[in-house]
C-alpha cells in the first residue's frame, strides 16, 4: 500500500527545505457524523524527521491541526542524495514511515 507521507526535501547549499503532506483524517473529536454521533478523535500526535541518525525536527500535533496535515521547515547539514526519514504515530497507535531522498 502506498505511503501516507509525501515529502519534498530540497537542498540549496547547506540548507535543506522540507515540506511534508501526510494523508490523515485528523478528526478532532468535535465533529458529528450524519447520524448526529460525535466522530471520535483520530489524529497524528508525533511526527519525527531524521537525517544521518539525528532527529532534525519533531512535530507535536493536537486535534487542531488540519486534515491531511502539512508542515514546512528547514535544517542544515544535509546534502543532495542524503536520506531523510519521516515517521508519524497517532492517538490510536497507528503509524507510518517513509524514507525520502533529498533533491
Amino acid at each position: 500500500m502506498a505511503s501516507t507521507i509525501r515529502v519534498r526535501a530540497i537542498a540549496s547549499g547547506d540548507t535543506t527545505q522540507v515540506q511534508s503532506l501526510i494523508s490523515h483524517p485528523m478528526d478532532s473529536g468535535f465533529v458529528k457524523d450524519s447520524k448526529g454521533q460525535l466522530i471520535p478523535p483520530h489524529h497524528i500526535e508525533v511526527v519525527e524527521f531524521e537525517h544521518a541518525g539525528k532527529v532534525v525536527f519533531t512535530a507535536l500535533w493536537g486535534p487542531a491541526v488540519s486534515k491531511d496535515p502539512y508542515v514546512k521547515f528547514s535544517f542544515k547539514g544535509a546534502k543532495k542524495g542524503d536520506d531523510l526519514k519521516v515517521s508519524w504515530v497517532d492517538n490510536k497507535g497507528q503509524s507510518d514511515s517513509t524514507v525520502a531522498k533529498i533533491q
Partner: protein
Amino acid sequence: MLRKLLIALAMVAGAAQPLLAAEGASDPKAEFKAFRSYFTNRFPKLALDDFVNGPYSMDEGLRKQWKAIDEFPPYDFAIDKGKAMFATPFKNGKTYGDCFPNKGIGVRQNYPQFDAKSGQVITLDVALNRCREANGEQPFDYTKDDMAALTAYMAFTSRGKPMDITIPDDPRALAAYTKGKEYFYTRRGQLNFSCASCHVQNPGNHIRTEVLAPALGIMNAMPIYRSAWGGMGTTSRRLRTCNSQVRGVPLPGESEEYRDVEYYLSYMANGLPISGPGTRP
C-alpha cells in the same frame, strides 16, 4: 419574458451589451464575445488567465492563503490515486487509456463534448463511466472520491492547456448549449437565485461569508479540494451543493441539466487554461 429579464439583468450589471443574442436563436460565437467582454470590462486589471482561479482572482487576502496551500496542495493524494487507478487494467485487461485519444493524457480540455451517437453532451466524468461499463466494470458514483481521483489526474495532465470546446454543426448540439445557457440564467430554489445572480452579477462580492467567483473560467479548476469538505469534489458534487445552497433541489450527478450547463460554461471559457485540480475555500 425570460429574455427581457436577462437583458435587464445584464443592463443592471453594467454590461455594454446584452449577454445574449437576438431573440429566437442562440449565437454561441456572439454570446462568447459578449460574455468575455462583460467580465474583462468589469475587471480591467485582471489578467485574462487569472479568471480561472475563482475567488482567488477577486480577493488578495484569499489569494495569499491559496498560494500557501497550493505550495503543497491536499489534492496531491487524489492525483496519485487517480494515476494509479488509470494505470490499473480492468478485469478484461483493457485500461482507461484505451477509451480516449492519446491514451487519456492531456485531453481534459476537450470535455464536455457533444456525442452525435447519443445526441447528448458527455462530460469527462460520463466518458469515464462509459469506459468502465464498456469494459465490464461498475460505474462510479459521480459525486464521490473515485471519480474525483480520476478526473483530478486527467485534469493534471492537461494543466495549462487552453479549454477547447466545440459546438458541432448539429442542431442537437446547439440545443444542448442553449439549454445549458438557460439553466444558468434561470432562477431557482427558495432563495430564487440563478447561477448568474451570483457569478455574473456579483463576482468578487460576498455572499454571507464567501467571496463569489466569476462565471468566466469557473469550470477550469475542476475537480476541486474544498477546505469546507476536507476532501475532493467533482463538478456534480459542486453543482449539487450550489442547488442546495439556494434551497433548491439538487439533481442527480451528471443530470442532463448539469452536463448542459457545464457545456455552456466551458465553451464560454474557451482559450482559458485548465488549472485543475484546484483548491477552494
